[in-house]
């Protein structure tokens, strides 16, 4: 029985990892675009982006998940996600990526705005372009500053993936819960906590390592 539970939980956890990795892959670059938008000098764009970030950060992720998945079908009579598990997965990822990109964007913005004006000016008087200044001078300094707040968000994401369960995406919580009905076992659900704990432990070590790696310079 134990073996059966572990196999099932491992499968569920693989899906959790997939949700986690795909969300990061989408939200990290999208967040940067949103951050640039929220710092834009073109006021309508800035206003639009700020409103969007307000809505996303101001409502529960679970609600966003439900609206994104059920909304198109119920409101527009056009279920763009299809019926299968594939469609549910894509809907979940869309919700997660949008949500996390908004949180990341604020962290990026804080990081970018904290870089001293002199760094930009030094690049300018040396004849660098704006793009060169951002990627060659500013970016690594921003990364160094945002590692602690980003690690916070990313560790939260590990656990937020469990919300996917409410639109029936088969992840580890679902896998553990299934044993209550099928075999009357409650411990597999509790046991899923260990998976999260272990994975977050690994992430904590990883972020500690990155912080240490970037400690060779001071701003």
């Amino acid at each position: 029985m134990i073996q059966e539970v572990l196999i099932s939980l491992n499968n569920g956890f693989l899906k959790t990892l997939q949700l986690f990795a795909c969300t990061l892959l989408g939200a990290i670059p999208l967040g940067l675009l949103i951050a640039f938008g929220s710092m834009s000098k073109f006021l309508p764009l800035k206003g639009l982006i700020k409103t969007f970030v307000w809505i996303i950060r101001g409502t529960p992720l679970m609600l966003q998940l439900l609206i994104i998945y059920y909304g198109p079908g119920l409101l527009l009579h056009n279920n763009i996600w299809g019926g299968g598990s594939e469609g549910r997965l894509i809907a979940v990822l869309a919700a997660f990526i949008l949500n996390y990109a908004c949180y990341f964007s604020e962290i990026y913005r804080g990081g970018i705005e904290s870089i001293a004006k002199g760094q930009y000016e030094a690049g300018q008087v040396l004849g660098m372009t704006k793009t060169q200044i951002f990627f060659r001078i500013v970016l690594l300094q921003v990364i160094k500053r945002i590692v602690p707040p980003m690690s916070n968000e990313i560790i939260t994401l590990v656990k937020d993936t469990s919300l996917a369960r409410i639109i029936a995406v088969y992840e580890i919580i679902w896998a553990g819960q299934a044993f209550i009905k099928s075999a009357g076992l409650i411990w597999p659900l509790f046991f899923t906590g260990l998976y999260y704990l272990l994975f977050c432990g690994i992430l904590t070590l990883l972020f500690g390592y990155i912080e240490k790696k970037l400690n060779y310079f001071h701003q």
Partner: protein
Amino acid sequence: MPILEVNNIKKHFGKTEVLKGITFSLEKGEVLSIIGSSGSGKTTLLRCLNFLETADEGSFSVAGKTVFNAADTSTLSEAEIRRNRLHFGLVFQSFNLFPQYNILKNITLAPTLAKCGTPEEIDQKARALIERVGLTDKIRNYPCELSGGQQQRVAIARALAMEPDILCFDEPTSALDPALTGEVLRVIKDLKSGDSTMIVVTHEMEFARGVSDKVIFMADGVIEESGTPEEVFGHPKSEKTRAFLSTSLEKI
């Protein structure tokens, strides 16, 4: 022909007129010191020359070629500004070295991005510049491992790497403790013999007097007095100059 001609530069921030029409010229190889109390517009003038601020009125030219003209929008486009600002180099009060790069990379970064030669040429030139400012033993160190004076010497080498026609210094020793100002001033003094054209905004009166070919005293956004160091320091004509000099040379 003068290397630099500045014509009637005006600049205001909000309602405050910071520069009220600045006109001067500079010959190749000359060292110009700009002195004056805080808020007189010295730094703003330097920033206008380096395109960090855009002057509202006026123009300036380098070796006869107009590089900025407030009335001509073609000198104001971004690409044009990037080309033209390389006539000038700027050493900041607060050094502004790139913290994530070692000393060598700080100096080679801009020439590499601008493709000013092969990597070997750029590297060789950077090493020669580092030797010139006396920091060969620090070539692999990071800025945070250097003293303020050493950082400022690196900043000078970094500015020289782009071979500006005119090198500007914005109060290069004001962020340093007195023990470290000497080494930076010595480096600047040594550049003079290398016939670089320089503009130095400074509070170091002894230095301005000893090194400059020309001194400008600014007060309230205008050039109150200008001339040779002997004229300005020895026989100041303006009342304001005399008042300024007597307070700054006052021994406490």
